[in-house]
């Protein structure tokens, strides 16, 4: 396959590493060197480091005490619950269990609703570990800190922050239903990639109740320092909440309503 004499003379332009100028066009791992057919040791170890960070984001438990303390420092009460998934392995194997509350957690929220939330709050913010504890630990408190003054300005009432262990997005529906919230904002750690292990997602659902589909919520994703900064995310979430309360819906239908309003407004 090699060494046939008919091919034009080969004039090496540069080693492949000389193409590193291409790297400015993409975050992809291009123009890496090649000992034999393999990655250079340095690049191989960088890859393993990135994978280790992503694995730890999935598997290192969220420090709920530290999270509650961060929120308390902001003057915010929080309540801790758990999904029906008993541990991380069950969470990964059984997405259905991560979407519903453990029975004792549901009872705790029912008591809370009866005793302390006689007048239901407009907004319930829920923070769940999801697939990245790192995302929630790093971005959760700063985002909530940015959201609070915006909600106060808009005159929205806010219930206690609900912190969920082993939770997926749809568990916010049950929490919002029990607490009779008009809107639930679900903050959840997104599936980590090699380049970003700390992405937080925010899902806004109007009139949350068990059985809401993903098409009935709006999502703002990639919330992290090197992605969508928390200040911008907070502004976006507040705009979504305003629109949702105004139109009394979220999801694909809200997008359509906003598009229609824009068309009418522009004509």
């Amino acid at each position, binding site marked *: *396959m*090699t060494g*046939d004499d008919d*091919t*034009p003379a*080969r*004039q*090496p*332009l*540069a080693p*492949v590493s000389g*193409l590193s100028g*291409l*790297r400015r*066009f*993409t*975050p*992809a*791992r*291009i*123009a*890496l060197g*090649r000992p*034999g*057919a*393999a*990655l250079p040791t340095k*690049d191989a170890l960088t*890859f393993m480091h*990135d*994978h280790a960070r*992503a*694995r730890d*984001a*999935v598997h290192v438990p969220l420090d709920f005490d530290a999270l509650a303390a961060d929120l308390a420092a902001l003057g915010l009460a929080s309540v801790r619950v758990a999904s029906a998934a008993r541990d991380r392995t069950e969470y*990964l*194997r*059984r*997405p*259905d269990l991560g979407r519903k509350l453990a029975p004792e957690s549901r009872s705790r929220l029912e008591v809370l609703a009866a005793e302390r939330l006689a007048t239901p709050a407009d907004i319930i913010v829920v923070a769940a570990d999801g*697939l990245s504890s790192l995302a929630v630990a790093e971005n959760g408190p700063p985002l909530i800190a940015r959201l609070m003054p915006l909600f106060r300005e808009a005159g929205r009432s806010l219930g206690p922050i609900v912190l969920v262990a082993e939770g997926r997005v749809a568990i916010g529906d049950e929490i919002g239903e029990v607490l009779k919230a008009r809107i639930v904002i679900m903050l959840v750690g997104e*599936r*980590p*990639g*090699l*380049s*970003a*292990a700390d992405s937080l997602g925010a899902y806004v659902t109007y009139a949350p109740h068990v059985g809401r589909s993903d098409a009935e919520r709006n999502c703002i994703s990639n919330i992290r320092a090197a992605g969508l900064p928390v200040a911008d995310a907070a502004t976006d979430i507040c705009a979504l909440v305003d629109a949702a309360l105004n139109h009394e819906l979220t999801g694909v239908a809200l997008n359509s309503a906003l598009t229609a309003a824009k068309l009418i407004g522009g004509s």
Partner: protein
Amino acid sequence: MSYGTTLDGTRWVFPDLKSLMACASPARSGDELAGIAADSAIERVAAQMALADLPLKVFLAEELIDYETDEVTRLIVDSHDAVAFAPVSHLTVGEFREFLLDSETSAVDLAGLAPGLTPEMAAAVSKLCRIQDLVAVAAKTQVTTGFRNTLGLPGRLSTRLQPNHPTDDSRGIAASLIDGILHGAGDAVIGVNPATDRLEDYIRIVTLLDDIRLTLGAPIQSCCLGHVTTAIEAINRGAPVDLVFQSIAGSEKANRGFGVDLKVLDEAYAAGLALKRGTIGANVMYFETGQGSALSADAHFGVDQQTMEARAYAVARRYRPLLVNTVVGFIGPEYLFNGKEIIRAGLEDHFCGKLLGLPMGCDVCYTNHAEADQDDMDTLLTVLSAAGVTFVIVVPGADDVMLNYQSLAYHDVGFIRRTLKKPGAPEFDAWLRQSGFDSAPGAARPITDAALAPALRYLEGLSA
């Protein structure tokens, strides 16, 4: 009709064919999630024993998903070739395994048999196969397809170059593409997963890929992996579409979840064929599949995920595709939990695809919440190579920065050529040599100025 067997004095009964198939499936998280897996190792082997004694013909008499309500079942039943089936029509599933492994059974025999096999028969026999069996039988099959080069020739292994970019930036895609060519990747297809499904982006991406192909003068084909309806619209607007792509699954309901049915696939196939862009072959379709997609769409009807996957191949083969691959570890740990499950599933999918006559490839991949790592991918690649896989997907440094998962790396092309000793498509390898990009058995290390400069100049001229 119920099925059963007696094992150590215990009578095991399976109420219907789909529960027998599910219980006979090697363990995996998706079947457990669906609540259809065997409850114990003994129950699993009892089901495998009952399945081994089952005549193949039973699969023609008992449907796993209702004929009246599912067009994939209708496709399977109505397109079954009884003449092709005749040589194995008298066998049980267990005897069929031995027939496939028999040294007297040749590539020609297997190719002739393919139209006579249903996906359920292929899935059933795979459940009785160890990994070595899956490799040995698949290695005997030969499925050759062509567009601008020839894929699937014996002893060769092609690659899809996947130069994805998080925002579909033209220069970002071009930079990754050029780097991949330098590794000798891309003979199967240059295929971009777009970040959006907007028509204008689709047209921009296929035009970009075609421009680079023409600049390089390479015998390759390209594809933007947007939705078929987007592809049809782009074709109507005169865009240079080589391959028409779609994700497919094994039931009508699951396909509706992907926004397609056979009618729209028929339309897309006709539109792709009409362009006549292939120079040496007219295989114009590219499909991706993956175990768990039907379950995730709640469209599995109690059928195990591996059988659902094989049913997707019935959809694929209707369109004589250039390429089909399972995205085996992409769908998540709730369907394939760890490296062991991913490796087995990748080999099952390849085996079933090849038995059914498809040019089967594999996206050797995993996500960060699966119990898997690059060691598992190295193992799967090496075993798939022994099984004669048609193609695998490679991305820069094994890290797809758009889809956020890990596949094989461009570097693995060098491993495939040097260590596994598999050259690529002959036309592509000849072009690599003639252009001064080195080729098999070594990777494309030395680059000539003349070969690369036009592509780099093209890239410099692009706007973001």
